[in-house]
């Protein structure tokens, strides 16, 4: 194959061919490596503590807030219809910022701009609750497909950072989550790292938390530089992870150890 042909092939190659992530169909949610007891905790809506946040988000959805004195429901109606599938599309390309935007950031923008509400912190209870409620409307749907070409450069950047060795341990995300999933780190099974259930109820946290929080925790564990909550590099990484998990089933609110 000539140099020119090779280049042409590289240019038209879909992203999938470049990645060494588990192939679609082979990917396993962390749910599948959990004990039957934890799976039961996630499956039973009365036993799943994440449902408490969903319930709180449901109440917020129809509570009037901000200077506009408007509820989410006043514009968006029944979330079961209007929000179904929304989480499956996030992070999505946001033309205004010309960058990907995560679901909680999208909700926050709506709260601040449409409701005139005071800005909320990324890991605040209300933001988590509303995000969990909105994401829950997509439970059972497939993630993706994330085929917007405008999103691609950010997915690529996220993939690059996923494969970038960093921190004092000189590890990349891929070292664990692409190359050694299923093996153990201390007592825990290393998951493939799919963002299918966020916000999740993590037993380690004893509360619900965002993907950002999980990524920051992972980076801290690698002794790497930890970006601020909501930092663009985290959203790029989230965009790559979402694309990598495309086709997988949304579980929100997932339970994880």
């Amino acid at each position: 194959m000539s140099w020119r042909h090779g280049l042409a092939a590289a240019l038209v190659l879909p992203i999938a061919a470049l990645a060494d992530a588990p192939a679609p169909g082979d990917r396993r949610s962390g749910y599948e490596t959990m004990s039957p007891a934890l799976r039961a905790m996630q499956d039973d809506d009365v036993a799943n503590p994440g449902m408490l946040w969903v319930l709180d988000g449901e109440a917020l959805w129809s509570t009037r807030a901000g200077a506009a004195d408007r509820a989410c429901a006043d514009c968006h109606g029944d979330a079961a219809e209007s929000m179904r599938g929304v989480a499956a599309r996030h992070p999505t390309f946001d033309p205004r910022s010309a960058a990907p935007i995560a679901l909680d950031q999208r909700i926050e923008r709506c709260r601040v701009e449409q409701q005139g509400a005071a800005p909320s912190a990324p890991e605040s209870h209300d933001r988590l609750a509303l995000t969990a409620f909105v994401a829950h409307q997509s439970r059972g749907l497939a993630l993706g497909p994330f085929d917007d070409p405008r999103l691609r450069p950010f997915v690529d950047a996220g993939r690059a950072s996923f494969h970038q060795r960093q921190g004092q341990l000189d590890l990349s995300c891929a070292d664990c989550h692409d190359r050694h999933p299923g093996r153990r780190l201390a007592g825990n099974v290393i998951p493939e790292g799919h963002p299918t259930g966020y916000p999740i109820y993590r037993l380690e946290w004893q509360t619900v938390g965002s993907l950002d929080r999980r990524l920051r925790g992972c980076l801290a564990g690698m002794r790497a530089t930890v970006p601020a909550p909501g930092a663009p590099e985290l959203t790029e990484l989230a965009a790559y992870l979402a694309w990598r998990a495309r086709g997988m089933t949304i579980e929100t609110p997932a339970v994880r150890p």
Partner: protein
Amino acid sequence: MSMRPGRRHFLRITGAIATAAMVGGPVEAQRRRGTMRELEAAVRATVGEGPIVEGRVTVEIPALVENGNAVPLTVRVESPMSADDHVRAIHVFSEKNPRPSIVSFHLGPRAGRAEISTRIRLVDTQTVVAVAETSDGRRWSGRTDVVVTLAACLEDA
């Protein structure tokens, strides 16, 4: 804390533990005797003196515990749960937690069954003991050994 009044019952509850602990060597055995003694004291403070018979009580915890912050626990007592023969209370104790008492359940014939599930915190691999009080004033116990794995990536909270 005096060991004297409850010594025989202490052994009854902890007998198998002492044997198991020998595997870990004399230091581990002594450490576990210490923690089991605290458990025993908590049992006595809760149900008083008198015999505690091993049996009728099942403590069910999954073989694999991925995180000690929320460990699924089911306790079950064999009982007809009738008006004149039923379980009045079930107390659950930990060997190694900072405090031995975990939870107490109060029930009666209107429960229909003496079976309760909850989620508890266990700080480490250890023994969990449940003591049931029945309507005839007798006490029964059951226990289980639990392996608690620790999380690999603890974030700076």
